[in-house]
């Protein structure tokens, strides 16, 4: 491994009931994905406040992905429907401000979809890596 190889930092917010369990399943099945992906457990994808996402970018994240139960399967019945609307609006706004749309993503991963979790993370990490460092939402103070 090259020391200087660019490694994107990816924050993945995973809902406790589906996606976090999906990530666990990926682990159980030893399905590899980049270590650049760091998971934060939230009760439901609808717990993810846009402020958390911007915070992650501020602090140096290069990509933020939100994973929740498939629509219709929310443990809380409707949480991910709100996530879907909020994030559609927010991501569209970030795009409007010229921030690369590939840096944000919402993916539905069920507790049974360990393979999908790993595949999603591999794909997302690759796409974010292709963009390079997040410059448009960075806070240089955090890089000192």
């Amino acid at each position, binding site marked *: 491994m090259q020391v200087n190889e660019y490694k994107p930092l990816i924050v993945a917010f995973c809902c406790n009931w589906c996606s976090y369990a999906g990530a666990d399943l990926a682990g159980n099945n030893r399905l590899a994905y980049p270590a650049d992906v760091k998971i*934060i457990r939230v009760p439901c994808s609808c717990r993810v406040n846009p402020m958390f996402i911007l915070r992650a970018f501020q602090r140096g994240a290069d990509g933020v992905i939100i994973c929740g139960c498939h629509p219709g399967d929310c443990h809380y019945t409707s949480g991910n429907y709100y996530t879907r609307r909020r994030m559609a609006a927010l991501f569209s706004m970030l795009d409007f401000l010229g921030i690369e749309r590939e840096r944000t993503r919402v993916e539905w991963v069920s507790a049974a979809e360990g393979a999908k979790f790993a595949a999603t993370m591999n794909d997302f990490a690759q796409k974010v890596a292709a963009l390079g460092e997040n410059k448009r939402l960075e806070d240089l103070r955090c890089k000192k």
Partner: protein
Amino acid sequence: MQRVGVFVCWCGSNIAGTVDVQAVSEALKNEPGVVFSTNYQYMCSQAGQDMIKNAVKEHRLTGIVVCSCSPRMHEATFRKTAAAAGINPYMVEIANIREQCSWVHKDMLTGTEKAIILGKAAVAKVNLNTPLIPGESPVTKRALVIGGGIAGIQTALDIADAGFPVDIVEKQPTIGGKMAQLDKTFPTLDCAACILTPKMVDVAQNENIRIFSYSEVTEVKGFVGNFDVTIKKKARFVNEDICTGCGACVEKCPMKKVPNEFNLGMDNRHAIYIPFAQAVPKVATIDPNACNMLKNGKCGLCARVCAAGAIDYKQKDQFIEEKYGAIVVATGFNPISMEKFDEYAYSQSKDVITSLEFERLTNAAGPSAGKLIRPSDGKHPHTIVFVQCVGSRCESCAEKGKEYCSKICCMYTAKHAMLTRDKYPDTEVYVFYIDVRTPGKNFDEFYRRAVEEYGVKYVKGMVGKIVPEGDKLKVQASDLIANRQLHIDADLVVLAAAIEPDKSARPLATMLTASMDTNDFFTEAHPKLRPVESPTAGVFLSGACQGPKDIPETVSQAGAAAAKVIGLLAKDKLMGNPCVAQSDELMCNGCSTCANVCPYGAISYEDKEFRMPDRTTKIRRVAAVNPAVCQGCGACTVACPSGAMDLKGFANSQIMAEVDAICK
């Protein structure tokens, strides 16, 4: 400032194989708040837990971070450990360095690096944790069972036997469900009625059980231990309390041509009817769509012949409100519609029937009094073809079939084939199958008997097409083992239709806020460890509503669900989940946005008087969260623009601290 202890688990070599646990515990030693950091082979073992307890005592820890397997695995374990050591169980955070680190990364360097970061995030979070105390709520000691098939019956009987009152809500006029329609049961071949009807009688006679037949659940409010349920008792136009079930009304009823649902429309019933002789409750019901009196006020014969005076044409739907502590869903299954399976000519020929119709045809109480006949001409069939997996395991035909295996078909088809050959040795019986699946006690023996003793011709391969021609059914099929095409002139074809959840399940799930899979089967809280509980607290699953199953399996699940209900109702108080939303009144605008997104109706508003900074008072509308109702999803916290709403255990500050720790 917290005094945090960090405990890094090796999990044998599961973690230690890819993560330098020593390096992790060393690195975390320097994190803010950390006063103790160590590692050990198996943190979850008794020795590991003792290590935590001792460290709490020795280092006066106020917070614990365990770097180990997934919190879904052992969070509860370590919380108990913390409680045993005298600190609040919610002062424990788990860094998942097994499933989400050591198991998915191969390189020691990256694995260790990531484990340290995950540990830092957990430390950052625990530094902001506050002790949480679960709220308590009372338990209504009454259970509701929705569905009166064998699953519901067994669950109700078991709960009632433990001394708790149970109500069964059944949408049909009688309980009994699908099992009441069956002839014999595999693999013992005892008759379904002989084993079911005594249980139905038990239900009727049990003082702890009430049956709401011909009824439906229309509204469910509340939460575990405290459900408020509205039950619609549909008007049956017969006073249940007076009707003796003598049947005089049925005999006199002039409307005789109503298709009989119980026999799947293979014969007729009257407009006033008792579904079958052993129905419970054994009372008549008037079908308002067929009764002349109800449709146009002409007739009234039944009222005249009823000695008890039970007929009441003016009866209205009744709504009953009742409180329950637990709800058991036992809504069962139905065979899927065969209408779309044109290739099997189900709609074209009366002699192509489903397995359930076959049950009725062979049942002594059925339309043919148990004599196997062709429905079209009443003749005795000689060549009978059974087709398995019609609509099951149907990956390519999702629009009409199901992707899953219906599980029971292999066995009942073997039963049908065997019984046919046994009773009518002159018949030739073919069974077409993809696989024969017989994993069950005495199941494979049963199937082998069908082949070996009864000479049923099992053919691996699917039927391609069935064409009615004259009084024959031309069956084209392939024999995959012999690798040839088969052409059979059959007299009767029996389709093993896939089964699907009852249509009432989906709206019920919405009412219960219980989750379902894409096939509308109810999801269990955990597929292995909590198979009879729904993820929604207080809602339990019994029978085929959760997935296809046979009678023995259904009965065992029914008993298991009952045990869970009994365990719940035996408690006087329930401890809630303390990770609930909480509103800061001083910041709340009272805008109702949070209430709009709350799926549980946990948020209410009140006008409160506030002392303002300028020493005046002001009355403002503010939100209040009912902690017993809130399930802690957090939807409200993001909807709230002022940030007044926050979630305990997953507070904004905690999640941001995790973000910061991960991103630095």
